[in-house]
């Protein structure tokens, strides 16, 4: 970690803080996936990581490299932007799919042969 | 650099360029594509003969080294053109001409991209023969395998796809082994260049020799799968039987690639100067080769269809070649190469014959074999009706019969054709490893067993082919004269004709194979040509 020696203490502290915040949020989100009971609850959990979890770490990275290179470097911001644009797509699609699956299961409870889900079934 | 200096790379680039160019034209332009393919294949044949003449000069053996990217070996990839590789390239292009001619009758239109796959297969095979780099060998193996997957599945159909699945699964496993082996060798020696490897292997520290041996063994297993050694060969007869006739005719060279690599590497890396690893694996090759001969012979006898028979006879020839590599001495290698030429040509011709003969057996098959399978379902029947290419053969059955008989002689190794000379050369080598007249002790138990196997396997092929031949050509009461086009029988005649010519010119061919064997046993020559600096350093040190 030779690069870090040159880092001013405030930057190091701030970076460390942001990194830890981001990681903590992500971890909490992951714990959420364990604790929540239904899919629609679980769907909220990863957003901790994809919102400020990512944001904090991205900021940390930007900060570090800006300070180290003594110029503003923000390519990491793109990561944040991309994540916040793409993650909703997947979550929306998944949520909608789940809604359909659950509806159709309720609707066709009388016809269990239609109930088979395509690749996977509850164990 | 003058133009001739670039010749060694052309057998790879020419098919590649042809294959890529073919992609730029619309699928439906069959004749144009066929034309390009014919031109490229013919050019390849001319080129390979040129290469053959380039290396076949009297005096000290010639090894042409082509440094790709102008990087000095062992860092860059090199192509090495010597007598052996020139011979194999020529054999490939001969088979290609025959197979292509055959396919022009109907097969080339059965599915998209036949010509491209065909040229890429040639590219892969030629690359495997020419390269002097172990990982580059892997790449060309993959090229030829990928193209062979395409050609194997070409035309689709239940049986073919089922066999293709097995073929691909096994070869994927083999490719993984190849990678493990190559990388392990790199991990121990730090190089990929074959000549460099030959230099470094004797110097590998004792504590690393086990790892090196393990890597070589795994690599060897990968090649043995491709070369078709029992018990790694069960996929082979089914695959070759299931593939379309021109494809399997061309595939006859594929198992020879495995043999080629085993021959090249075992003599180069584990030859007389390999230190502790000298002769590594040769016993396995000998015993495995013999087991393969035996299994192939029984398989030939057990075959009910001619296609499977042809596949098993390929196994017999594979086993014979492997055992010869196992013997390892010059005479055996020379005999093996002669045998390789004749058996490859003959098996290839037999694969072409299979379709023609089966057409004679089944009236329904007489009507467009291709359409039955390939156009079974189709939402988009875009291909127009097949039109005739060439003239239907008169007296087809008689010519087929003669060809079949000659092939039976060739494959069983019965006199007087080159099949006999090849087998005799091998047997002669078993009894007189140092040459006729040099007083040596008689062959050991292995030698006797191998001799017996060589003879008995020939007998098995003879019996089986006689059975099939009688059933096909003699037994039927009403003779169905198959619709055979000239372009279909011509390649068979061509291949057999080459065997006949080889019989007449056996002395010259043997002189060539003797020279090949001789050069293979002087690994210094190869190493010195690829790495002149290193070799001269070594010379100074001594």
């Amino acid at each position, binding site marked *: 970690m030779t690069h870090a020696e040159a880092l001013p203490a405030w930057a190091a502290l701030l970076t460390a803080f942001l990194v830890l915040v981001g990681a903590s949020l992500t971890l909490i989100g992951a714990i959420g996936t364990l604790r929540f009971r239904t899919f629609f609850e679980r769907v909220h959990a990863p957003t901790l990581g994809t919102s400020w979890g990512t944001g904090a770490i991205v900021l940390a990275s930007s900060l570090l490299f800006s300070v180290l290179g003594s110029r503003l470097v923000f390519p990491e911001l793109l990561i944040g932007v991309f994540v916040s644009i793409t993650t909703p797509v997947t979550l929306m699609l998944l949520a909608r799919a789940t809604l359909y699956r659950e509806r159709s299961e309720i609707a066709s409870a009388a016809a269990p042969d239609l109930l088979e889900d395509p690749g996977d079934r509850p164990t | 650099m003058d133009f001739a200096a670039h010749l060694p790379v052309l057998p790879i680039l020419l098919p590649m360029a042809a294959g890529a160019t073919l992609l730029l034209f619309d699928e439906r332009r069959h004749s144009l594509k066929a034309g390009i393919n014919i031109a490229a294949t013919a050019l390849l044949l001319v080129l390979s003969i040129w290469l053959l003449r380039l290396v076949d000069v009297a005096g000290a053996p010639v090894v042409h080294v082509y440094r790709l990217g102008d990087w000095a070996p062992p860092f860059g990839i090199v192509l090495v053109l010597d007598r052996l590789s020139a011979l194999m390239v020529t054999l490939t292009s001969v088979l290609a001409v025959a197979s292509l001619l055959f396919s022009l009758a109907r097969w080339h239109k059965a599915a998209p991209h036949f010509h491209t796959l065909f040229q890429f297969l040639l590219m892969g095979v030629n690359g495997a023969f020419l390269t002097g780099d172990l*990982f580059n060998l892997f*790449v060309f193996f*993959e090229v030829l395998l*990928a193209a062979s*997957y395409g050609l194997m*599945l070409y035309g*689709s*159909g*239940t049986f073919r*796809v*089922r066999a*293709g*699945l*097995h073929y*691909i*699964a096994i070869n*994927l*496993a083999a*490719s*993984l082994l190849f*990678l*493990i082996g*190559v*990388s*392990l060798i*790199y*991990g121990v020696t730090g190089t*990929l260049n074959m000549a460099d490897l030959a230099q470094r292997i004797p110097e590998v520290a004792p504590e690393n020799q086990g790892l090196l041996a393990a890597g070589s063994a795994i690599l060897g297993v990968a090649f043995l799968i491709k070369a078709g050694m029992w018990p790694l060969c069960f996929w082979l007869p089914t695959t070759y039987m299931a593939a379309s006739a021109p494809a399997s005719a061309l595939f006859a060279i594929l198992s020879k690639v495995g043999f080629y690599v085993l021959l090249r590497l075992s003599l180069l890396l584990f030859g007389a100067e390999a230190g502790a690893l000298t002769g590594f694996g040769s016993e396995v090759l000998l015993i495995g080769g013999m087991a393969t001969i035996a299994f192939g012979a029984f398989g030939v006898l057990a075959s009910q269809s001619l296609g499977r028979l042809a596949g098993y006879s390929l196994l017999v020839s594979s086993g014979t070649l492997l055992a010869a590599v196992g013997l390892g001495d010059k005479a055996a290698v020379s005999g093996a190469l002669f045998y390789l030429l004749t058996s490859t040509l003959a098996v290839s011709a037999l694969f072409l014959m299979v379709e023609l003969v089966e057409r004679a057996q089944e009236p329904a098959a007489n009507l467009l074999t291709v359409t039955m399978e390939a156009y079974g379902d189709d939402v988009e029947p875009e291909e127009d009706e097949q039109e005739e290419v060439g003239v239907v053969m008169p007296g087809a059955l008689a010519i087929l019969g003669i060809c079949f008989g000659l092939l039976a002689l060739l494959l069983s190794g019965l006199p007087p054709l080159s099949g006999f000379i090849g087998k005799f050369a091998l047997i002669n080598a078993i009894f007189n490893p140092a040459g006729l007249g040099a007083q040596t002790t008689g062959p050991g138990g292995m030698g006797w067993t191998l001799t017996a196997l060589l003879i008995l396997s020939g007998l098995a092929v003879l019996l089986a082919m006689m059975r099939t031949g009688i059933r096909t050509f003699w037994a039927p009461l009403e003779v169905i004269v198959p619709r055979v086009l000239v372009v279909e029988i011509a390649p068979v005649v061509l291949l057999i004709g080459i065997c006949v010519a080889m019989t007449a010119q056996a002395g010259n061919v043997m002189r060539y194979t003797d020279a090949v064997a001789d050069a293979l046993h002087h690994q210094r020559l190869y190493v010195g040509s690829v790495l002149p600096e290193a070799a001269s350093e070594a010379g100074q040190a001594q």
Partner: protein
Amino acid sequence: MELTLAIAIGVLTGSGVWLLLRPRTYQVIIGLSLLSYAVNLFIFSMGRLHSGAAAVLDGAGAINPADYADPLPQALVLTAIVIGFATTALFLVVLLASRGLTGSDHVDGREPH
């Protein structure tokens, strides 16, 4: 880390081999994928492990190769990845074709008796 990676390679190989020997084509394709991960890592490990080493040259000037990760195995792995991708795609299509034509997803195209 060597140990970790070695064990990882071993487990991936074991899982891959297990699947490779299964009767269903889909199992085989997953097995082949796992095996190719294992093999790629194996090739990679042949250049030894260099955590956090420089991967790209700074520019001209004298270079101490020991400071860098061995690039050659990496290049080999790249080739292997590409080829692995291609063959996975091919195998997939062939297994689909086989399933379609034979009506069975058994590797032999028919259920064993």
